[in-house]
């Protein structure tokens, strides 16, 4: 991964919400992260994980209890939102209902004191960018949800912010429109070259759109990496569990060699697995294997795991096989459907499982 210049850096940021008569809530706990220039960076996590709080601290709507927020190396944490060259696309769009589409888009430039003709030119440019030229003089109440979304994007992009913050902007759209807007957002990010910080709880959205993802839980960032890193090499149980489906196998790390190791599973067999840095052997560990990284077949001596087929679920493009492992535990295998595999296994069959090389991953915890 090429390391670019950091556009936004959070340095040891904590945020505690104090409210009378209630326990204080630690929304962010010593968070540090660097977001690179021109990056599509996603904050991913379940609701209440602190992702929106971090976004609001970057926007300036809240101020950190502790720590700094740097914009190109300059601490912006104490600045009010109107003094930060950062714009936000709100979850509910927050378009001004008493203004037209064009007035909404031009608002930021107007507040920056730009001359009228420059504003008009930029508004036209933005309307073209989000393909809303014909809606220029409509009221925001007269356009659809998807169009409102585009106006909100155009409004936030019009002042050419250094960083664009997007707070679950697609959550109010229906499935088809959401897919369209995902592609649209990627295009806009590519065309404008602006750093996007995107907040979502939708793991699929995060995987398809992001350059890098930070997975958050309970006010902390658990792992930062490319979608592939996060999916294939989860470092913690929460990350592995939150993103995609996963099989968890318990065992003990018996030997290590660089980034690989051998794990003796509780169920008996020893398997090869990737290990995170600094993990010592002979500790109790959890190994994760994605369902699509295992192969199902007739039990042979070479089979790493053996078991009985408990259930078959057909999904059209692929089939899920739920296997009860010998020695306890369950394991799910996902296999793409084709002429050969179709109908070759029945519930109750004894089966053997193989794990693709280099796909089993030992978790840090």
């Amino acid at each position, binding site marked *: 991964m090429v390391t670019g210049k950091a556009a936004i850096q959070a340095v040891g940021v904590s945020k505690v919400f104090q409210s009378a008569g209630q326990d204080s809530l630690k929304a962010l706990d010593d968070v540090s992260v660097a977001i690179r220039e021109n990056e599509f960076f996603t904050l991913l996590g379940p609701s209440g994980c602190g992702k929106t709080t971090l976004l609001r601290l970057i926007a300036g709507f809240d101020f950190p209890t502790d720590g700094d927020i740097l914009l190109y190396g300059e601490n912006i944490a104490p600045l009010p939102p109107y003094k930060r060259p950062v714009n936000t696309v*709100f979850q509910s769009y927050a378009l001004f209902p008493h203004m037209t589409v064009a007035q909404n888009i031009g608002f930021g430039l107007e*507040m920056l004191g730009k001359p009228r003709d420059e504003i008009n030119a930029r508004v036209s440019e933005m309307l073209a960018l989000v393909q809303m030229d014909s809606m220029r003089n409509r009221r925001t109440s007269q356009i659809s949800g998807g169009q409102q979304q585009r106006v909100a994007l155009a409004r936030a992009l019009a002042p050419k912010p250094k960083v664009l913050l997007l707070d679950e902007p697609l959550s109010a759209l229906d499935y088809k429109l959401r897919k369209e807007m995902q592609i649209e957002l990627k295009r806009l990010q590519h065309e404008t070259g602006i750093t996007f910080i995107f907040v979502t709880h939708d793991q699929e959205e995060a995987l398809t759109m992001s350059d890098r993802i930070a997975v958050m839980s309970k006010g902390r960032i658990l792992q930062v990496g490319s979608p592939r890193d996060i999916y294939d090499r989860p470092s913690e149980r929460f990350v592995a569990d939150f993103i995609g489906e996963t099989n968890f196998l318990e065992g003990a790390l018996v030997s290590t060699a660089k980034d690989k190791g051998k794990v003796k599973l509780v169920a008996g067999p020893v398997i090869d697995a990737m290990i995170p840095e600094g993990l010592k052997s002979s500790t109790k560990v959890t190994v994760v294997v994605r369902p699509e990284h295992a192969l199902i077949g007739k039990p042979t001596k070479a089979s790493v795991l053996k078991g009985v087929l408990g259930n078959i679920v057909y999904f059209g493009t692929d089939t899920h096989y739920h296997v009860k492992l010998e020695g306890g535990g369950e394991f799910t295998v996902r296999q793409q459907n084709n002429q050969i595999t179709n109908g070759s296994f029945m519930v109750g069959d004894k089966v053997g499982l193989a794990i693709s090389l280099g796909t089993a991953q030992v978790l840090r915890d």
Partner: protein
Amino acid sequence: MGSAQDIVTSEERRDIRNRWLLSAPALFLIAIAAIGPLFVVLLYSVMLKGDYGDVKFWSFSRDGWFEVFFQKDIFDDTVSWADAHIIVLWRSIRLASYTTLLALVLGFPTAYFIATRDEHRRDVWLFLITIPFWTNLLIRTFAIQELIRNEGLVNSVLLGLGVISTPIQMMYTDFAVMLGMAYVFLPLMVLPLYSSMEKMDFRLVEAGYDLYAGRFQVLRKIIIPLVKPGIIAGSILVFIPALGSYVTPRMLGGGKILMLGNLIDLQFDQGRNWPLGAALSITLMAIVMVALLFYVRNASKSGAGHG
């Protein structure tokens, strides 16, 4: 088929009749208590005045209406403008406008403060705002007197601190009347303002800040346009009773600061000129109507256009 339809229509007819019956008391009350007296007032304004008050019934005269705007010299019968009435009229409009403005300036931050509290605390604040309404208007006006009279609290404190050497004359001035009215009518401004602010989406305020609008710009470009219905409603609710105010100008303005309400009272009391009093009352109503029309037109314009 035919009979079924007949049943439906007869049921509908009964429904309509029942509705009329149910609303009859209200309609009766409106007719008796509002339109009736209004008609009487209109009638009185076109009668000849009686020698000791009252009117001479069925002797029609234009004198009442004539005297609203004009006066006849008692010696040579020359006609001139009724300066005194016009001064009172102008003072009433001016003081009512100032009162509305003062109530808006005081009420706007108050309503904003309440609307931005926690939900359960808003009720407490709203409750506090309405407390003055529990007290009699006279008592409240006396309380204002206690504050601003020459020996009152404000002057005593200022004298005690050595800020002034002689008490500031506040009683019996326009200022006193305006202050009294603003105090009395403030809740009528705060409540409609609060109800529009409560409905306002405060994320729009955040969006404004995000788009480089400072505090003043957010107020001017976002909050005020969004709560405009509340501003208009509150202004109407304060302006109308302020224009016809009677107790406050009488107590805080003494005999000196006459407003329309006092002028009308004077005609029915010492003036013994009931037709003039009636004509003045209708003039007051007409001004209120014009003010309302102006507001309504302005409101619909700002609702639809804005550039």
